[in-house]
């Protein structure tokens, strides 16, 4: 089996021959200390045509697709894509963990991995007025499936809408036609489903005809930016907020007298280089005392929510990275751990509870904090 050939066929940029086996990928891999997954040896096995040794099928699903390996690879090998390619082979053979299979099925049937009804996608709008994008708007708000269905995340989505509207943004939404972006679908290797999502979603978005899309999730932003080839400006909401601040449109009159720290999402930070805007927004909130953790920006620790891990526990349930992360946040003396991604929200919020830090630390979306200061 020529993995590289297969990867090309499914649209991955994996370049096995460029690899010098330096190990920088595995060294940076957030899960490499806790699972047998070793991306360097997978690349090597694929290169020499001896994949049987390094491969551990179950551990393949441990990859969070944080792409630290891709970002740091000195030779542009794109090591994570060997994992995606291998996952896609497993998908073809139907060898998928049941929870991931269910999520994919949910997306296929209902447009969301949680398997909720398509009609309920806009239930979060209760109490808000969000106009239909199809009627024409300046800015399209794209809500992640989590932002739309997950109860904790919904609060953040609502806050965001309030904030954007307060700033006078002409906001529209696709309504129940909004369907999963497929970022995670592609990363778990279900290329067929991903293609289908693009084929259906791209015309829908283009028909709306807006110049700018704001996403709640960095994951959605990532795939729209890089994999949809849309003719529009795709922004993460923190970017949108930062722009509004700069333009003087976002006036915060209230105060949030809290010590706040911030966790960089991999898809926002490492993969798309958006480090400053979320911080600018947080620092602009009156009363906020902003502190940094040690591992930030390019060195941020992954929350383990990406790459399908929202739907799969991983082979190692002990010592989740999110546990470590919330402890780091607590150690800074912060009262609030600000996030900018619904997956991070889910993983870290859960970790705060498990680690018994609820008294000291709250996980909040940046939009929620801004909304508090309105």
């Amino acid at each position, binding site marked *: 089996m020529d993995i590289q050939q297969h990867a090309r066929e499914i649209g991955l940029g994996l*370049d096995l*021959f*460029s690899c*010098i*086996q330096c190990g920088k990928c595995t060294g940076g891999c957030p899960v490499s200390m806790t699972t047998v997954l070793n991306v360097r040896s997978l690349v090597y096995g694929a*290169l020499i045509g001896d994949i049987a040794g*390094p491969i551990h099928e179950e551990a393949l699903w441990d990859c969070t697709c944080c792409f630290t390996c891709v970002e740091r690879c000195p030779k542009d090998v794109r090591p994570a894509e060997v994992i995606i390619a291998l996952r896609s082979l497993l998908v073809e053979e139907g060898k998928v963990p049941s929870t991931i299979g269910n999520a994919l099925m949910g997306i296929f049937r209902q447009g969301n991995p949680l398997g909720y009804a398509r009609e309920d996608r806009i239930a979060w709008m209760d109490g808000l007025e969000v106009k239909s994008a199809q009627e024409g708007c300046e800015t399209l708000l794209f809500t992640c499936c989590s932002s739309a269905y997950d109860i904790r995340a919904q609060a953040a989505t609502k806050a965001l809408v309030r904030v954007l509207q307060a700033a006078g943004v002409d906001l529209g939404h696709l309504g129940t036609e909004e369907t999963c972006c497929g970022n995670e679908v592609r990363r778990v290797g279900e290329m067929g489903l991903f293609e289908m999502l693009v084929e259906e979603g791209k015309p829908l978005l283009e028909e709306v005809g807006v110049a700018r899309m704001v996403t709640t999730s960095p994951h959605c932003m990532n795939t729209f930016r890089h994999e949809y080839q849309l003719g529009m400006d795709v922004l993460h909401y923190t970017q949108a907020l930062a722009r509004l601040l700069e333009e003087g449109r976002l006036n915060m009159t209230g105060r949030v007298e809290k010590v706040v720290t911030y966790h960089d999402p991999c898809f926002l930070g490492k993969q798309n280089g958006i480090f400053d805007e979320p911080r600018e927004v947080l620092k602009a909130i009156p009363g906020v005392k902003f502190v940094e953790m040690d591992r930030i920006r390019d060195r941020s620790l992954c929350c383990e929510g990406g790459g399908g891990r929202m739907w799969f526990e991983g082979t190692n349930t002990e010592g989740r990275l999110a546990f470590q992360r919330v402890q780091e946040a607590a150690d800074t003396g912060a009262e609030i751990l600000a996030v900018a991604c619904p997956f991070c929200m889910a993983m870290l919020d859960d970790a705060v509870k498990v680690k018994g830090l609820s008294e000291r630390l709250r996980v909040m979306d940046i939009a929620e904090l801004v909304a508090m200061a309105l």
Partner: protein
Amino acid sequence: MKPRIGVYICHCGTNVAATVDVEAVTEFAATLPGVVIARHYTYMCSEPGQALIKEDARTLGLNRVVVASCSPRMHEPTFRAASHEGGVNPYQVEMANIREQCSWVHPDRHEATDKAKALVYAAVMKAAHLEPLEEREAPVTPGALVIGGGVAGLVAALDIADAGFPVHLVERSDRLGGRVAELNRTFPDLEPVAEWLPALVDQVRRHPNITVYLNSRVTDITGFVGNFEARVGPIEAGLAPAQIQVGAIVIATGYNVFDPRLKPEFGYGIYPQVVTTLELEQRLSSGDLTVNGKTPKEVVFIKCVGSRDQQLGRPYCSRVCCMISAKQAQLVRQALPDARVTVFYMDVRTFGKRGEEFYDEARRAGVRYRRGNVSEIYRRGERVVVRVEDTLLARTVEHEADLVVLAVGMEPRPEAADIAALLKLPRSADGFLLEAHPKLRPVDTAVDGVFLAGCCQGPKDIPDTVAQAKAAAASALIPLMRGVVPMEAATAVVDPELCAGCGMCVEICPYSAPALDPLWGVSRVNAVLCKGCGACAVTCPSKAIRLQHFTPDQILAQVEALVGW
């Protein structure tokens, strides 16, 4: 003249000062007989340090200078020059080595300081007995001898000839171009050698200042920098040897390739599938890569064959094999697009300009690099099996191959040893010729006027060889262009009244400076040849030979100071 001595104690940063109490040594030195001034300074060899000596020499009228610092090997010329500028005869300068012989070897501050004082005392006592000596110059024969007609020799010859000096280029074989002429294409540009080497050879052959001696070797060299006399003997008998006079010599005798039969585990010479990089080069030139009439499907390169191998006495890296393998692997990929090409390596050393990029290109061309030092090769049917631990898999693998290429290392040429013996040139532990200083004098040798170019000094690729050859040319051009060379002033002299003519000095001298006068049966030293090493003076039982600057009274004064301490 009554000694007026200045003593200068160097801290050498912290090299000396960390262990030796330099202030105490300075105070002590100031009390010694004849000492007019004693100072200490961070780096005596620096410009301000030297300025101290000059200034004192002028204003205090010093006629002797003692510097307590490092070994005189490096800095004696520095302090002689500085003192000379201050009006002190350079041979009335004495150094006390309080670094290598004191601070670096004695951890105890108190003891080290005491020893430094003793060494300074001894140097002062010797300095008081030093006599002024005059440096002289000898004329230089305009012209150079270049031994070896490979790329290094060609380039060195051209630069010297272009600068207007006659060059005698001696080559053992019947053609110019050396090892490079055996290559097909060169890395990292894959440029055919034929596109530039013949032009270079032609330039040399047609140069009016260059005389080429093919099929010849240098059988004898006498003389010294500026005035060498060499005998060039044709290898074929019957032709008359040529006697040539030159001012400088460039040695460019090149290298040999390792004979892989010394690593019998690879089966070289047994299996037709196993060839060396040099042999593959010829096959690539001819375009025939078949083995036993079949086109190979699996090609394996094995690196470090005869390099980085202490067991074989070749601990060094041959520096070019990584790039040669990368080049040949690419060329094999081009020639045999269906073949799988695998390179087994320990470390990939592609360090030169465009080297890493070239390695990148090789991998992108589909060459598989696997980390592991191949352990053995054996036959399996029509193929051979390469057995190796893939250290990245941490597993032993058997890799079947139709063609195995051994990247053979470089080793010193036996002929270089002959030249070394003729000129009494030292060789380094690896057997290559030894440069005068590994960092700052990489092409000079222990023998003045003799310079090294190319792989006779150590393995190197073509750009580095050419640079080094030009460097050797620059070193050779300095005496040639100046027209004179300085002569050692601290030479040995014979007292004919005492000399019994035993000839021990003649035997012991590494420079053939003394000779027995056939009429009187006494020894006479040729001052031009004498390097002042003193071997003759210590050998002579009659003390009939005196080495100026190291006379018995000078040495005894020093010894007396030390044992009297």
